[in-house]
């Protein structure tokens, strides 16, 4: 867990006001601890990502939610795909083969 102040000091270009606004927008959702916040490792990584999106990639603040929403959808789909892959991985060899062939056929555009 990382405290609010610690995180502000850690990351260049970030200040109290900015981080508070990101929390208020719901872009990063740290745990509330008393009057302050505690950031998990994932929250910290997310603040780094937000910083990069805005400062390095020069995405205007008004456009950040668009990018963030698309990214969260992307990660959501990746989690679901991982779950399906894990579920397929424990199936018998024959079933796995069939699924792989069928999926490959459809992805290559030869589906009816």
């Amino acid at each position, binding site marked *: 867990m990382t405290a609010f102040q610690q995180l502000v000091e850690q990351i260049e270009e970030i200040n109290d006001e900015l981080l508070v606004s990101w929390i208020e927008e719901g872009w990063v959702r740290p745990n509330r601890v008393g009057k302050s916040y505690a950031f998990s490792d994932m929250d910290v990584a997310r603040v780094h990502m937000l910083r990069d999106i805005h400062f390095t990639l020069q995405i205007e603040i008004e456009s950040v939610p668009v990018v963030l929403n698309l990214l969260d959808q992307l*990660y*959501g789909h*990746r*989690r*679901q795909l991982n779950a*399906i892959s894990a579920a397929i991985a*424990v199936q018998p060899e024959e079933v796995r083969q069939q699924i792989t062939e069928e999926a490959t056929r459809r992805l290559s555009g030869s589906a009816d």
Partner: protein
Amino acid sequence: MPNPRDPYELLGVKPSASDEEIRLAYRKLAKELHPDLNPGNAQAEARFKNVSQAYGLLSDTEKRQQYDAGQIDADGHERPERPFYRTYGDGAEGARYAPASEVDEEVLQDLFGNIFGRHSNADPFASQRSRNAQYSMQVSFVEAAKGGTKRVTMPDGKVLDISIPEGCEQSQTLRLKGQGSPGIEGKPPGDAYVRITIDSHPVLRRDGNDIHMELPIGLHEAVIGATVLVPTVTGDVALKIPPGSNSGRMMRLKGKGVRSSKSGSPGDQFVRLTVTLPDEPDEKLKEFLTEWAVDHAYDPRAQERGET
């Protein structure tokens, strides 16, 4: 000769580039390579790190001058490690930031529909509202023999408390009722099936409910007897080797095997002795036995020839 570590080449700019040109080059590459925007691309992270490091060096006027003057190399000043969101976004924890309007199970169904093809409105899950999950788990030889409870995190992030039955067998599949994937449309969750793989033990071997092992003993222990510690599934026990024990002698440790799930009574552990000589021939022992053999006629093959 091109230097793949050269910060100018990494950013694709001339050594005479202005600060502004360097900044723009970095931003352009970051848009393309940022690891959080490329979660499925392993190369992107490596390239992004190199490009960021190059930018870290060239965007610092002092460091850039030192590099140009050959006072520091491209690795000279590594930027501190920073975490990337993609490390977490793919994991179970990432669900915290899933778009709020989505219900995971519906999406999962949609995904099945999209990826694996669903042509009619027929529901592919109609016959299987409660979904089972299948896992596999590795347990040690001793855990399998003694049984016990083990908390494990499965590859999909699910944490299960698995009760390993005493004396469980290789490839045995345990059923954990109601521990499968969440049911669809309010149906109860399915069951989790966990297939057990038992690691081998360096010394012990299972044969049904009995345990077998080979125990090497020294010549002196074989002749004058000894008490030695042998491993069992419940810990080391002291085994008394009677004087004059031959190779091949089988000792039984009663009740030190695996408890039978059927009869409820435990098997035994069998210890087979093997008299073992030192790797290096011992001169003193050789001398002593040469003398000893003179007046101690003993022919271990006499019986085979029917001379007794």
